[in-house]
């Protein structure tokens, strides 16, 4: 085989590379030392990714008749596409262009210039050797199913669903609670406008429930995902409601007649009650109630059936079991949201032990006119109005003992709480904060408004909330709470007497976030939030093609950001649907039937069921539609009958030789060391 004509392009990346790697030396070295490997031209340029840099490559391809291009610059995850397109523009098959990283892997992680320059040379040699073994490839084209799965029916999911459905494409929303709406449905007011959350949310819920293109799967969970971008197969479990949805009118008589009342730890955050058969809140969508057998007298004792007796349309069915439905979708949006931080984890704040310490979700429900107290702000006894309220910021946020990150919404929710307490009671309100973070539109103005309303602000992290009095001047505070905090602006320790303490709890991933991420094949950071494809430029895409994420499943965020995320994801998904097909990297395994001995070693290795065995021909076959290109079967084949395009045996062996070419099989480097020792 003749050595293909190769061009090498070394990027300065401004000074990102050039400050550590001697790019001119690397360029000259590549031109001379790699000439026998086909390098006919080597250039450097300040920004290879610029249009002028790309033109440089395109002109050389035409002028020198380059058959291979190696660009030494940033990570292929950054600009591989850019340079492949440049090559393609000049008529070179895009896959004959290799981007090797001398920024992320060399200049940004090493400081010794000589060593970094040597490593850059080796990395380029690896690329030149490897690309010489590359064959031209064409991207695989796959059709995109126009249906979309949205997991999670909170505001992010609902927004995306309405956008996609309104464009005319089918959407399936899978929600594990009885109703869509998510956390937003639980809130009373929304900052900074003080819009009533239900007033702005429920019309959207109704739209989603009534939209002909949206199918709601509430009280349901995704249990299995297979396939890949454009063609996912989803298995959804419908948990039994014990209510026949087709017949139910949502009249609510069954709920009224149910004799069992249990604490509602779900929608009412543990401060209200629900029945054993219930709809979580009056505006729930869909309207059908849900019966929980663990609370139901009939399931425990075999008698009662009050709901069944009184149901005017006979739609109670105690025999229902799990039902499974299969969906085919082209794209998936994960909008699974968050769970509030469990305040019990910070014992010093006394939540769960001191009755009048509340969490933010409890306060949301309490201040909601439709909530358990009818909007009255009262202590745990249900009647006493507080005279003094302390709001504690950063509970479960900005704390290395719990979560290091800022939960983004707590400052604003705390300011909102201060306003609501002032509005509903005559209480003095204190906010204990570390830093006041109000970067959104109208947020700082809201902060000023709360300052003007007379709320006291104490800058300091609360050390303890206690009901034990410690100093003589605290006489008279028996039965109240004392909040100990260092006022870092005044430089004094304070003990603030309070009747009610509200812990502004942070946002955490859902408890099963990692399992969900695993099922959909997307990455999670160590704290459990889904990782974006790119934090800035692809904030709602994930590493897995065709799977997107929006809202608090990506990290703590407020309603406006969640809505923007949902809309952004919808736009991205719609663009893919509109294109009708998607180009995929042609990295696939193929079997050379001539060489296959039919040993079947590879047959059990594929988790995507892409490998089948042809019993007649006694050879293995690989379905390119199912193959994901991992290459495990390629590595396992004892007859070298399976090859993997893009990552072939020859390419990788060549890259190994290239990366180690400065060692001459070990001897050269040791000789060099010996020279160094004598110098």
């Amino acid at each position, binding site marked *: 085989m003749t050595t293909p004509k190769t061009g090498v392009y070394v990027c300065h990346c401004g000074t990102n590379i050039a400050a550590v790697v001697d790019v001119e030396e690397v360029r000259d070295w590549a031109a001379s030392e790699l000439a026998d490997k086909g390098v006919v031209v080597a250039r450097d340029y300040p920004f290879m990714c610029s249009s002028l840099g790309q033109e440089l490559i395109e002109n050389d391809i035409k002028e020198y008749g380059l058959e291979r291009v190696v660009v030494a610059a940033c*990570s292929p995850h950054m600009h591989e596409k850019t340079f492949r397109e440049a090559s393609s523009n000049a008529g070179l098959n895009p896959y004959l262009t290799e981007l090797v990283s001398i920024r992320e892997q060399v200049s940004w992680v090493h400081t010794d210039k000589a060593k970094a320059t040597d490593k850059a040379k*080796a990395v380029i040699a690896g690329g030149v050797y490897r690309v010489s073994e590359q064959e031209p490839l064409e991207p695989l084209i796959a059709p995109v199913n126009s249906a979309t799965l949205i997991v999670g029916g909170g505001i992010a999911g609902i927004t995306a669903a309405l956008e996609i459905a309104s464009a005319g494409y089918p959407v399936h929303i899978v929600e594990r609670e009885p109703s869509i709406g998510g956390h937003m449905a639980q809130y009373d007011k929304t900052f900074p406008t003080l819009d009533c959350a239900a007033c702005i949310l429920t019309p959207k819920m109704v739209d989603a429930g009534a939209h002909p293109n949206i199918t709601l799967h509430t009280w349901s969970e995704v249990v299995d995902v297979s396939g890949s971008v454009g063609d996912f197969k989803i298995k959804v479990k419908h948990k039994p409601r014990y209510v026949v949805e087709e017949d139910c009118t949502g009249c609510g008589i069954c709920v009224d007649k149910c004799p069992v009342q249990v604490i509602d730890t779900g929608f009412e955050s543990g401060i209200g009650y629900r029945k054993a058969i219930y709809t979580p809140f009056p505006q729930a969508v869909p309207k059908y109630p849900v019966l929980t057998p663990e609370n139901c007298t009939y399931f425990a004792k075999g008698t009662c059936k009050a709901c069944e007796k009184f149901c005017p349309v006979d739609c109670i069915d105690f025999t229902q079991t799990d039902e499974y439905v299969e969906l085919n979708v082209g794209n998936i949006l994960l909008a699974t949201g968050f769970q509030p931080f469990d305040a019990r984890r910070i014992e010093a704040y006394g939540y769960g032990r001191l009755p009048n310490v509340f969490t933010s979700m409890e306060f949301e429900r309490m201040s909601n006119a439709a909530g358990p107290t009818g909007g009255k702000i009262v202590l745990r006894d249900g009647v006493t109005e507080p005279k003094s309220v302390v709001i504690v910021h950063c509970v479960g946020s900005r704390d290395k003992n719990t979560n290091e990150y800022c939960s983004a919404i707590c400052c604003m929710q705390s300011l909102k709480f201060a306003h609501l307490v002032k509005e509903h009671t005559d209480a003095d309100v204190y906010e204990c904060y570390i830093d006041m973070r109000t970067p959104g539109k109208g947020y700082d103005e809201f902060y000023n408004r709360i300052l003007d309303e007379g709320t006291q602000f104490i800058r300091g992290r609360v050390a303890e909330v206690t009901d034990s009095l410690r100093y003589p001047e605290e006489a008279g505070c028996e039965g109240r709470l004392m909040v100990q905090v260092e006022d870092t602006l005044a430089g004094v320790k304070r003990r603030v007497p309070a009747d009610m303490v509200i812990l502004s709890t942070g946002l955490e991933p859902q408890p099963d976030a990692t399992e969900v991420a*695993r099922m959909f*094949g997307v990455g999670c950071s160590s704290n459990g939030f889904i990782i974006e494809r790119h934090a800035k430029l692809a904030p709602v895409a994930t590493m897995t093609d065709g799977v997107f994420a929006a809202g608090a499943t990506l990290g703590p965020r407020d309603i406006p950001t969640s809505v923007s995320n949902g809309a952004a994801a919808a736009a991205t998904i719609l663009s893919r649907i509109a294109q009708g097909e998607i180009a995929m990297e042609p990295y696939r395994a193929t079997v050379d039937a001539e060489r296959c001995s039919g040993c079947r070693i590879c047959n059990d290795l594929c988790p*995507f069921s892409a490998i089948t065995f042809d019993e007649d021909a006694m050879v293995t076959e690989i379905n390119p539609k199912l193959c994901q290109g*991992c290459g495990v079967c390629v590595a396992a084949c004892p007859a070298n009958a399976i090859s993997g395009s893009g990552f072939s045996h020859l390419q*990788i062996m060549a890259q*190994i030789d290239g990366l180690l070419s400065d060692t001459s099989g070990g001897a050269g480097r040791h000789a060099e060391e010996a020279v160094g020792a004598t110098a």
Partner: protein
Amino acid sequence: MTAPVTTPAAAAPAAAGQPFEPLILGFTCNWCSYRAADLAGTARTKYPHNVRLIRLMCSGRMEPEFILEGFAKGADAVIMTGCWPEDCHYRIQSVKALRRFIFLRRTLADLGIEPARLQRFYASAAEGQRFADEMARIVAEVKALGPIPPETRVALAAHPDVVASASQPQEVEV
């Protein structure tokens, strides 16, 4: 974190007086560990220059031959990195690299190469710091082992049949 600069006495190479700088081949998968390396770079986390990386799509793509070729051509150690098994982009394929790793360490011992010269670790796309820390740890360990004797390398390179037979992990009774 910077490279450990300690040079244990045992690491004194043939060329006396010159600290032994090992050359290490690192294999990454496309989805997790390569991105961890990218993140280490983006965050400007420093690690020793001794490691040179090769990107595979999956750590399960690792052929035993790649490792033996690496040793034959001058690598002082080889690192296999990939996704945490539960996070594998290809579901469970990173686990399949483990079988080969166990087998290969045994084969290397038979060839006179210390098993510790074949290393492996997992790193998620978010674990740039871990990637750098592991690289520093492994470079320090390999420095302590010292260079591979040239005759071992020559023997390895001269016996392609050893390389070929070792690329058939199915023959191993684990």
